[in-house]
Every structure is written in C-alpha cells, then in structure tokens.
C-alpha cells in the first residue's frame, strides 16, 4: 500500500558524558514552555519551541458541559484565564474584560485528541515528494522520528482543528516491526514542527503486529515473512537494547572508578572510552526506562497477547493497541493490564486481520473496570469527525445493553487518548489548571449534524465557524 520512503535521519549531537552517562532521548526531557520559546537558549535538539500566544480571559456560559472526567453539567460554565481552565461550574462570575460566549443550547467539551495520525508525514497532497511516513528499508527503525518527516503546511491540520481536534500524535507508518518515534503536537499554526510540539509530551514508539511488516519484507523474500519472524524481530531488537544498556552501565562504573582514581591522585588513570551511540538502541532503551510510550498497531487478540508477553519479558509497558479490531475478545485482560484500545467505530474487512471487526468494539473494551477505549482515526478524513465515530460506537453499545451516556463516551476522544499519550495531567479534561483546550459545539457532538463553533487551544481562539479566516492557514493552499 504505502510506497517505500527515503531515509531521513537527523543525527543527535548530544554529548554523552554529561550528568548521567546513559544517553537520554533529548526531546523526552520536558522543556518548560517559557524556556522552550527562547530558541536561542541551550535547548535539546528538536525540543518544543511552542508557547501559547497571550489570550483574553473567556467565560463560556450556560452550556451543556462534558468535562471529560465522566461528568455532565447542564447550564454549565467554563472559565479560561491565562490560557488555562480556571474553573468549571455554574453561575461563574466573569472577570473584567473577559470575552463572554453565550452557549445556551450548545455543548462544550475538552479539545479532542487523536492518538493515531499520519498528518504531515503522509500529507495532502499525496505526492511522491511528500510520502514520508514509512522508513520501510529495515524492519526495525527505532532510530527514526516521525517529526523529522512532518510537513507543517499539510492542509489537514487546519481541517482537523475545525473538527474540534486540539492535540494529536503523529506516528510513522506500520511497514516496520518497530517504525520509529511518534510525536505529540498541538494544532497550532506554525512554520516548524518544533513550534507545534506539545511541551513536555513523551515520545511514542510505533510498533506493528501482523500482516503489514511480513507483507512489506516477506514480499521481497526478506526477514520477516511470517508472524513468528515478526516476534523474533521485536525480541532481538529489545535484547540488543538490553545489551546496549549493559554496555553503558559498565562504562558508568568504569568512569566512576576513573574519577575516583583521579581524585586519589592516580596520575596514570586513563579515562574509559564510551560505547558508540546507537540511535536505534537508544530509543528502545528509553522505552525500557519508561520514558517513551509504546503504541502498538495490532489487530488480532492472540497477537496482542503475544505483545503483552514480550512487554513483560523486556520490562516495558504498552500504552495502547491501535486498530485492535479484536480487542473486544480480550477486553478484561486489556483493562487488567492497563492497556488502552485505540479503535475505529466500524472499520473492518479490508484484510484478514480486520475480518472480525464489530461495531460494539469500543463499547465492549470500555465496559470492564479500568477499561480504556479510544476512538482513533488513522485518516485525514476520519480525524475531522472523531465525535461522530464516538457517537456511532456509543449507539452500538447502548443497543447491546451497555449504558454509555455522552459524558462517558466523550472520554474516548479526550481523557483516554490524553492518558495513553502521557499528557492527561495537562489536557484531556476540563479541570482547573489544565490547558485551555476547549471546543464549543453547535449542539450535541454526538450527531452527524454537529459542528465545532469555537475551538480554543491554550485559551487562544483558533477557529470561529461564524468568522472563518479569510485565507487558509497552509501556504500550500494560497
């Protein structure tokens, strides 16, 4: 399906002898927005330079508010001050000079979040020149970062924002067993991806089960060509990374000894030579340290169980199984292990591993205690209507006898994706202190007729349906 891509690997130039000797993924270190904005400062490569524009205090009044915490407030107010949600409740007083949004009859939700997008890496227009989503030259490319392929002028970004999306994770494609690092961004207009990057968000790691890797490589008589080959590939990659971590641990010990010898006046002490940096293994080491979150494309229930065993073997956690059309078969296990299911409402049938798709999948994965369902898109079309996909799944759940009110279903496109991306402490719900990522809908978002009237990102009104920008955001569309 997806053609082969050229290699785009930017070399990180961090010194490895500072502080902790084990190399850390530079952008995995949280960078405070205020500091990050200073692009001249000594910042880690590729880290976020995004800082919100100043914004008016805004009081949205009299709406049906779905907070994303499972609560619905009728006649509710949301107050955004300084780019943050200040309070959520009823009859909130308006600060002086605040913009007042009379939202009677309208609904308010947190900004929607898509955990699975290829926007910018498979941009519109889909030209060969912009075909940058799969580094399908090697089944393990944990060294590549999706952000280095992101074209910020992709017109899809503005379309997604107009669909109420305020954050998304951009992932490499699924040609590879381990496809590379994903990046979480905010839907803000920008010339560079650094200026879109969600400050402090951890990287994701894209892994893929099943048919895609074995088709891409096996089709050319390369490894892997079978599912057992796939599993050997994941395990060898993590085993190599374990060895790499050992090498660095050994180096740390030798360096400590060297420093001690120096301090004790041993003039003949020679400094140890650090291991050669390996960008593939560096990423996997960060996964095993818990600093990068695994997002695993995996359709079949039995393969999910295999991946859970591999995660246990190497001591990492899987944040979410993506495209898990069979997740419903394993709903209790996923809930017990704290793994989210990032799912479509009704995609199925286009390949064998999608043959058992059912429309109740999201509702069933949501049902057990601790169940975590996420509506994801994997589509520049679908991302514009995540709310409608949630509505379809909610409806199917209800018909199957599962009571899923809107205040619960909205979590599938807000709090749950935020949780799987490691950003729930900053966004994904309407709670005091969180980012002012807020959508005012023309009515219930669980409708085919739903349209986002207003979309705020960090308190900044970025889309106003009644007053659309006279020109498209993307330079390409001029």
């Amino acid at each position: 399906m997806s053609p082969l891509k050229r290699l785009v690997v930017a070399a990180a130039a961090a010194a490895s002898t500072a502080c902790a000797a084990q190399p850390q993924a530079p952008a995995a270190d949280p960078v405070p927005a205020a500091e990050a904005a200073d692009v001249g400062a000594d910042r880690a490569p590729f880290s976020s330079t995004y800082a919100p524009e100043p914004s008016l205090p805004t009081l949205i009044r009299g709406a049906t508010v779905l907070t994303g915490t499972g609560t619905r407030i009728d006649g509710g107010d949301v107050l955004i001050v300084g780019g943050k949600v200040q309070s959520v409740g009823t009859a909130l007083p308006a600060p002086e000079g605040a913009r007042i949004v009379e939202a009677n009859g309208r609904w308010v939700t947190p900004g929607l979040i898509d955990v699975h997008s290829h926007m910018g890496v498979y941009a519109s227009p889909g030209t060969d020149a912009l075909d940058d989503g799969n580094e399908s030259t090697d089944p393990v490319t944990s060294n590549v970062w999706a952000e280095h392929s992101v074209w910020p002028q992709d017109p899809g970004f503005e379309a997604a924002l107009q669909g109420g999306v305020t954050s998304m994770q951009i992932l490499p494609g699924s040609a590879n067993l381990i496809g590379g690092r994903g990046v979480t961004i905010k839907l803000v207009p920008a010339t560079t991806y650094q200026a879109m990057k969600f400050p402090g968000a951890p990287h994701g790691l894209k892994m893929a089960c099943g048919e895609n890797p074995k088709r891409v490589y096996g089709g050319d008589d390369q490894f892997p060509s079978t599912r057992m080959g796939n599993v050997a590939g994941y395990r060898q990659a993590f085993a190599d990374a374990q060895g790499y971590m050992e090498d660095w641990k050994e180096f740390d010990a030798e360096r400590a000894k060297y420093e001690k010898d120096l301090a004790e006046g041993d003039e003949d002490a020679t400094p140890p030579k650090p291991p050669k940096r390996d960008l593939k293994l560096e990423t996997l080491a960060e996964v095993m340290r818990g600093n990068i979150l695994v997002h695993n494309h995996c359709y079949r229930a039995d393969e999910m169980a295999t991946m859970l065993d591999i995660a246990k073997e190497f001591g990492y956690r899987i944040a979410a199984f993506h495209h898990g059309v069979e997740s419903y078969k394993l709903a209790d296990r996923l809930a017990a292990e704290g793994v989210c299911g990032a799912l479509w409402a009704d995609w199925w049938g286009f390949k064998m591993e999608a043959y058992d798709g059912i429309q109740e999948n999201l509702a069933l994965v949501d049902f057990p205690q601790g169940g975590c369902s996420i509506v994801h898109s994997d589509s520049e079309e679908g991302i514009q209507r995540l709310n409608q996909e949630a509505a379809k799944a909610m409806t199917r759940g209800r018909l199957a006898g599962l009571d899923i009110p809107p205040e619960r279903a909205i979590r599938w496109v807000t709090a749950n994706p935020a949780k799987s991306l490691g950003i729930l402490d900053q966004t994904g719900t309407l709670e005091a202190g969180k980012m002012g990522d807020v959508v005012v809908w023309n009515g219930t978002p669980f409708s085919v007729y739903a349209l986002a009237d207003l979309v705020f990102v960090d308190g900044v009104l970025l889309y106003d349906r009644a007053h659309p920008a006279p020109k498209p955001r993307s330079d390409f569309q001029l």
Partner: protein
Amino acid sequence: MRRLSLIVAALLLAPALAGAADLLIRGARVHTAGAAGTLENADVLVQDGRIAAVGGGLAAPPGATVVEANGRPVTPGLFGGVTQFGLEEVSLEASTFDAELKLTAPAWQHMWRPEFDVTPAFNARSAVLPVMRVEGVSWGMLAPLAADSLIIGQGSAVTLDGRYDAALHGSRSLFVNWGSDAHDASGGSRAAQYMLFDQAIREVREPGTSAAAALLLPEGRAALKAYLAGGRVVFYVNRASDIREVARFAAARGMKPVIAGGAEAWVVARELADAGVPVILDPLENLPGDFDRLGARFENAKILHEAGVRIAFSQSDGFHLRKNRQLAGNAVAHGLSWEAGLAAITSGPAEIFGLGGSRGRIEKGQAADLVLWSGDPLEVTTVAENVWLAGQPVEMRSRQTELRDRYLERVKSHSAR
C-alpha cells in the same frame, strides 16, 4: 425501542421466504425520496414484492403482516455506492478479489478490454452482504477496478435481496479512469487519454484501418460500440478542467457521461447542469488529496445540487458502504437540503444508473426495498430496525452480530481474556 408484533418477529428469524404475505407499514414518517417528499403518519402497502400503495389510512388486506411504525421514519433501501461488494471478501486477499483484470501479456495488448464485465463474479452469498443489508443498504453499483488502465471494464447495479441473478436490468455501465489516476496508462500525459480513446473509437467505427498493434480485440470493439451509441460511461475524474473536457468529449462521441469522484465538479456545476451530466461524489472529501483535487470542499454537493446537477454519494470502499448515510448527513450539515441528502443515496443514484422506474423511491410500482429507522435516517445515532427487500423481511443477523453475541456475554461476565 418499539416492538414489532410476534408474527413479524417470527418472520424475521425465518430464512427468506418465497411468496411472503402482504405487508402494511402503518403510521410512518414516509420519506418517499420522490416528488411527494415526506409524508407524515402515512402507510405503505406492499404486495408481491412491490409497493402497491402509499398514503393515509390504507386498509390491510386479509392476511397481511401489519407493522406499526408509530411515527418512525421509513425510507427506500439505500444505495451503497459504486463499489466492489460481492466481488471481494477480504481486499488484500487476492484469491477473494475479482474486481481487477490482470492479464500477463504485454500491457498494450490487454490494457484495453472493455469487454471485461465483473457482473458474473458477483457472489450473492458473500459474508459482506448481510453486514450491509442489516444497515439498510439494498443495492449498489458493481464496478471493476484497475489502477493501470484507461478503460477498466463494465459493471452492473445489483440488488442485495439475496437472489443469485442480482444484476438489475438497464444499469450496465462502462468505467474509465481519467486524469492523473490514468497517467501511467496513457504514456504519462493526460492529453494522450483523448488521443488513445479516439484511436479506440476509430478501431470500432472503421475496423480495418487501424494499426497492427490495435488497442482492442474484436470482442472489445463490439463492447465499446454499444457505449458509443448512447451507453452510460462513468469517468473517474476529479480536476475541473478535466471534468469539463471529458464530459464534452464523451457526449460528442455518442456516450452518456457520468462523473465519478468529481472533487472539483462544483467549479463547473453550471456546465454540468446544462449538459445533464450527473456526478457521483464523496461529500466528505475536502482536502487537496492530489493536484487534481486542489479545489475539494465540503460544499461540493450543495453547489452541484443547487445548480441542478443530479448527484449520488459513494465512498467506493466495499467495507464502508453502511457509511453512505453518514456521508449524506454530513453533506446536510454543510448546507445541502435534507431531502436532497436522502435523494443522493436513494433516487439520485437510481436515476443515474437507469433504474429510476424500479427503485430508489417509495412510490406505487417500485421494488419494495424499505427500511424502518429508529430515528432520522441520516443521523449517526440511529439504526435500521427493520429492512425489507423485495417485500421480504431481512433477517437482522450477520457475521458481525454473531461475533457480538458470542463475546458480549463473555465481556459482561468478565471472562474476555
């Protein structure tokens, strides 16, 4: 959810019955998709698989099954789209995919096979079809696929009522790639598409004058000849300038063009209306997917309809046909009238494919393909509650409902692990 009578429930569980009883759906909001528009508190009488009467206060013939709609909406069965359903079980499994011709001779020898017709490969027992049927999809247009050919081949509309001989008379059409999608098949230039098509036409009209390396075999000449005498030819084309040019080109050579894709059709809406050229489009297409679609926008359907162009909706992927009503709902959200939205998935496509006299509307004499909905048929939170095809109740089961029922109990009892 409202309940049907026990008699009807029993019928629904039974396998398709031959010669079912008459059916009276009473007290419905009947969306006729025709000139009568929407009728409140109306009845629909079905006899012998056809709609016998539509109106208020119809009497139930003796022995008829009576369904109380209690104000719920009834629509004609939905058009699934221009698609490959029944031609494929699993897209990526080649052994289950019959929509594409891949002969092994040199390309120039086999590219042009207008005689290739996918209709006989239609599998009325495909597991895909019940999944669509229970969602109210009653028919669709089978179309061949080919990425590397200008003329792709022929297809027919099919009913999903379960009969083996499912092709609908009068719907046969020829499918042609045009514009950048056919670049590779035309030597890298879309200008050559006109050149090559004219070469093929000359082979049909003046056999014997063509070069030794002809584009068409004798069977192909015969097949194409029928289309040059007023046959329906569907052109997959998106760029406004190409749409305008190919519509004129086709009409001037005796063909009856239909535009499919049509991302930029709104730009030339007036010309298409004047020429009576219909457009099959995806109203969700609003991004510049390629350089032929830079002008894609949500308002395409609305602009075309208001200019007087007949429209139909299709997303083409055989596994997403049940999404067609969501396409219509979104077109309505972006300005298309509700009635026009429904028409674009019922009467519109029926007219486009020459079937307006037999389906697509709730009118006397039409095929009794009917859907009773839990609410607004274009809304994502409603479902088809009952479906009748040719007057027979459809068993509301599919492989997907079977999977659901198996695992629903496991999840509810916390044993899905």
